[in-house]
């Protein structure tokens, strides 16, 4: 992106904007009444018993909160860009933690279950996703070539496939494969059906990504290769794909990340992956939030790792071209 060389005045440094923002935030905090929370208790020396403080207490609490909020923004606005980003990230993360802790979590419960969740659930999730990613990539390469070929059969089959599997909800595909195939006489286990559904669905999306990536390479590259007497497969392998990969990587990375999370859909087949474990482990003791939040953090962590890998690959290809 192009960042303009002319710096505009920061709105946060304009009194009118600050005033307007303060009023808006004040109204927000007042409307949602934080007197009954930890903030009310902290301010009890001023407002007395939070429960009996009434309008005055409510006003004081919202005033203090909005002052903290606006001063925080004002202070951050003086920092350098990278520091700003870092501080805002940390603050948002703390808010998220505060949200999580507001559920009165029992950490001993999480501790007692996390071993099983990681060893069984996380392992299965990674296993299913990794196998599906490999198969989906293979499908996508074949599908993209078929869609770009002059062969009527290949094009028809590939476009029918992408149309069908992009057109059905993934959950429905999971059910159709798992419940449908046995009725036709093919017994399939839960994990292979889950992998089949994920691979076929994401293979269809990735077919389109690969096709677009290949098509984005200028025609001149094909012509120069043809003029040198290269065969189709050689051109694709040595000339077109190496140039298409840097274009394909970012959207493919997004697909990988999406697939990792969509692998939770196969929990409906009773596969002991992360989502299934989160649901069942919490059920017995009515400790749903503990397990769901743990699973959430594990998914999030995995996604961050994948994003970092994706960034690395992108950097690697950027250096080369």
């Amino acid at each position: 992106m192009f960042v303009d060389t002319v710096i505009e005045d920061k709105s946060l440094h304009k009194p009118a904007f600050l005033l307007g923002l303060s009023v808006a935030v004040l109204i927000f905090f007042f409307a949602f009444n934080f007197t009954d929370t930890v903030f009310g208790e902290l301010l009890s020396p001023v407002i007395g018993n939070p429960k009996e403080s009434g309008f005055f207490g409510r006003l004081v609490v919202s005033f203090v909160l909005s002052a903290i909020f606006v001063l925080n923004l004002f202070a951050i606005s003086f920092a350098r860009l990278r520091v700003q980003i870092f501080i805002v990230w940390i603050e948002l993360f703390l808010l998220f933690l505060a949200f999580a802790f507001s559920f009165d979590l029992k950490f001993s419960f999480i501790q007692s279950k996390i071993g099983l969740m990681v060893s069984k659930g996380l392992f299965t999730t990674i296993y299913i996703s990794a196998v599906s990613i490999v198969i989906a990539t293979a499908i996508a390469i074949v599908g993209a070539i078929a869609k770009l070929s002059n062969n009527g059969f290949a094009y028809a089959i590939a476009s029918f496939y992408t149309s069908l599997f992009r057109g059905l909800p993934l959950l429905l595909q999971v059910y159709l494969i798992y419940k449908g195939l046995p009725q036709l006489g093919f017994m399939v286990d839960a994990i292979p059906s889950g992998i089949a559904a994920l691979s076929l669905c994401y293979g269809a999306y990735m077919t389109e990504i690969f096709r677009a990536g290949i098509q984005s390479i200028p025609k001149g590259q094909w012509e120069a290769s043809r003029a040198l007497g290269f065969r189709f497969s050689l051109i694709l392998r040595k000339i077109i794909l190496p140039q298409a990969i840097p274009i394909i990587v970012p959207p493919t990375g997004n697909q990988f990340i999406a697939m990792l999370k969509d692998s939770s859909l196969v929990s409906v087949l009773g596969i002991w992956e992360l989502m299934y474990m989160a649901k069942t482990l919490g059920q017995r003791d009515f400790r749903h939030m503990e397990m769901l939040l743990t699973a959430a953090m594990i998914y999030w962590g995995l996604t961050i790792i994948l994003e970092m890998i994706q960034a690395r690959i992108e950097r690697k290809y950027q250096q080369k071209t």
Partner: protein
Amino acid sequence: MDTNTKAKNENPVISLDGVSKWYGDFQALKDINLDINLKEKIVICGPSGSGKSTLIRCLNRLEAHQEGKIHVSGIELHETMKDVDIVRQDIGMVFQNFNLFPHLTVLENCMAGPNWVRGIDKKEAKERAIAMLKQVKIPEQADKYPDQLSGGQQQRVAIARSLCMQPKVMLFDEPTSALDPEMVSEVLDTMVELAKSGMTMICVTHEMGFARQVADRIIFMADGEIVEQNTPDEFFNNPKSDRTKTFLDQILI
């Protein structure tokens, strides 16, 4: 025409016999008859849209013609031919936009053809590539990537890449049209050298100085037809058709 008497004596390396081509309803080439002999230097010129690029692109079948026959080294180019790659390996082509492979270094660009399709081992392909890069006078750029070079340098690499295949014929499709003015001469110099070495060359170009210097025959095309073909002297000093005269007036101001 007496300029074609040479063609009757030898076996032409390329021959076109009544070639016509259409893009939809538009006829791009109209009944082209042309013989090109080994070691001959041909310059094709004409106003834009006259079919000169289309013609040259038919010679290695980057474009398909619909009527007539094209023979290259005695092999007819047609829709169902099996060995088009073999024919293409013997015809080098230089494009207006260079079309170097941006993910390969200059050296790798030059080694690709010999190594991948001629079956020459890497060591020999590399030696040949370096020799050709010396011939176009940029051996020192061998390890750079194309986008690190100027337009003129890129075009010379493109010429070297074609020469590494040791072609019988070289096709040039407006090789200097995409270049900044100050880089035109370095590419033309390379082409003049190549002409001196005896290469068979067919050049679509507007560089009339180059045409005068190296061409054995200048072909003037307009509206998909060959209007006139002649030796440079006759072509410039004694043009026969009015269209040629108009064209020369416009281009030689």
